[in-house]
């Protein structure tokens, strides 16, 4: 099972205790308590404005909590995959140069990271010329090339098509297996991250509910927040994952894609 890979006794990479952020007299989030341990994938979900990004920014030390605490393991090395890049066309930047933005890497390290995310072919391209999906792969490759202890991804699937989304989550799972890093993921919906996540926190200004993807999906709070039909759509996934993990191995992508394509409702109905 996925959860076995997380070492429950290991020192948390990052832990938030009753953390909250206030802005202009309003609480953006409050009472946030959770930890990410090595090898664990934790997903934050919630509607727009529910405080997902604020919570991530506390983890990244961009915002300091106004209440509560954020504790980091000493010398914690974070790899961050932002939602998008405010890259102005006025800056010439190749993928190869961008890979070295915050770390010195050898050419071999750069190309192996890009290959891992399937972006090796754009090594010499300009960052401005990439499609949404290619840019996401490059952003992920850059973050994992740092060999982070904690990988943080803020809605990594924006601008990526449905098949690309599934592929990206599979990739994140693989990276976790190889590096043994903790992963904190922000997602706008639960159904796609089901396969790749150990624990889900459902946010709406505070933590509504948390637990395994299955338990969150059946939680009354979650259903209230996201609507019954979303929860129903999840049933398909549960079936697949029960099936896929009987032998404890990752499903080969091509197979799982083919398998899913008939059962999965169209993305429009899921995303509302």
């Amino acid at each position: 099972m996925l959860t076995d890979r997380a070492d429950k006794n290991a020192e948390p990479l990052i832990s938030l205790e009753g953390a909250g952020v206030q802005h202009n007299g309003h609480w953006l989030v409050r009472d946030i308590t959770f930890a990410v341990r090595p090898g664990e994938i934790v997903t934050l979900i919630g509607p727009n404005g529910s405080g997902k990004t604020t919570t991530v920014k506390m983890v990244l030390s961009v915002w300091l909590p106004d209440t509560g605490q954020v504790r980091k393991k000493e010398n914690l090395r974070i790899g961050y995959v932002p939602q998008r890049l405010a890259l102005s066309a006025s800056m010439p930047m190749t993928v190869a140069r961008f890979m070295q933005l915050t770390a010195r890497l050898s050419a071999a390290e750069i190309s192996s990271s890009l290959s891992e995310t399937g972006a090796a072919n754009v090594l010499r391209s300009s960052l401005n010329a990439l499609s949404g999906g290619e840019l996401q792969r490059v952003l992920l490759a850059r973050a994992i090339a740092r060999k982070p202890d904690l990988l943080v991804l803020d809605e990594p699937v924006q601008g990526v098509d449905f098949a690309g989304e599934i592929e990206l989550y599979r990739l994140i799972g693989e990276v976790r297996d190889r590096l043994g890093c903790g992963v904190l993921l922000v997602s706008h919906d639960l159904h796609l991250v089901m396969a790749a996540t150990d624990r889900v926190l459902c946010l709406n200004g505070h933590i509504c509910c948390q637990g395994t993807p299955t338990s969150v999906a059946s939680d009354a709070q979650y259903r209230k927040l996201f609507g019954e039909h979303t929860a129903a759509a999840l049933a398909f996934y549960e079936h697949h994952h029960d099936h896929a993990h009987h032998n404890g191995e990752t499903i080969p992508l091509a197979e799982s894609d083919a398998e899913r394509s008939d059962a999965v409702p169209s993305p429009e109905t899921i995303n509302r």
Partner: protein
Amino acid sequence: MLEDFFVRALLAGLGVAVIAGPLGCFVVWRRLAYFGDTLAHAALLGIALGLLLELNLFFAVFFVAAVIALSLLALQRHSALPSDALLGLLSHGALALGLTVLALMTWVRVDLPALLFGDILAISVSDLAVIGGVGVFVLATLLVMWRQFLTETLDPDLAEAEGLHPRWARLVFLLLLALMVALTMRIVGVLLTTALLIIPAATARRLTGSPEAMAVAASAVGCFSVIVGLFASLHWDLPSGPLIVVVAFGLFLVSLVRRG
């Protein structure tokens, strides 16, 4: 050799052009062109205050530009006004205040065109020493903090997350820009200071494929403009500051044609 006013002018212009290259790139990347203009206009207020209080003019201009830069940083965070309105407010406020103070000081004879358009041919040996010292300091800071500046420009959150210090980077960059303005206004004057920052960088953008190459190319384009502009101004007896900018602008037009 330094006795020759033309050699001094050439050295001063080259010194300023070298540091204007990389700083100008950041001004372009971060969309700070109007911000640079505001600092340059504030320079006039610096000159006025410097003359009034009998301070070193370079430090007076740097001081006023730094104060304006830091207040903008604070105002942008807390004001209901949009950034461009704030910039216009401070820019023209400082310019008008500077002109008024200069006019009030009837006991000082001020060469206003020299302030507005630069007076590179009047550079003294001690001016050269200031340009050299400050230039080396700015270049060294740029080299040491290059990764910080670049990452902060691309994504401040990413910089913070991955152990850099974007808040410091932003502050230091603004102070470097204030230093740059204090140096440049002697060369091309208040009105053309941002031209020396932006035009070489814009030209370099069309010729290069990495941020570092763009910074170096911008310096080279700036140096070329200074050399050609100064010799042309000597040859045709035209004002040097505007001519340097005209050459830089011409190079930009040529770079447009080159790539089509």
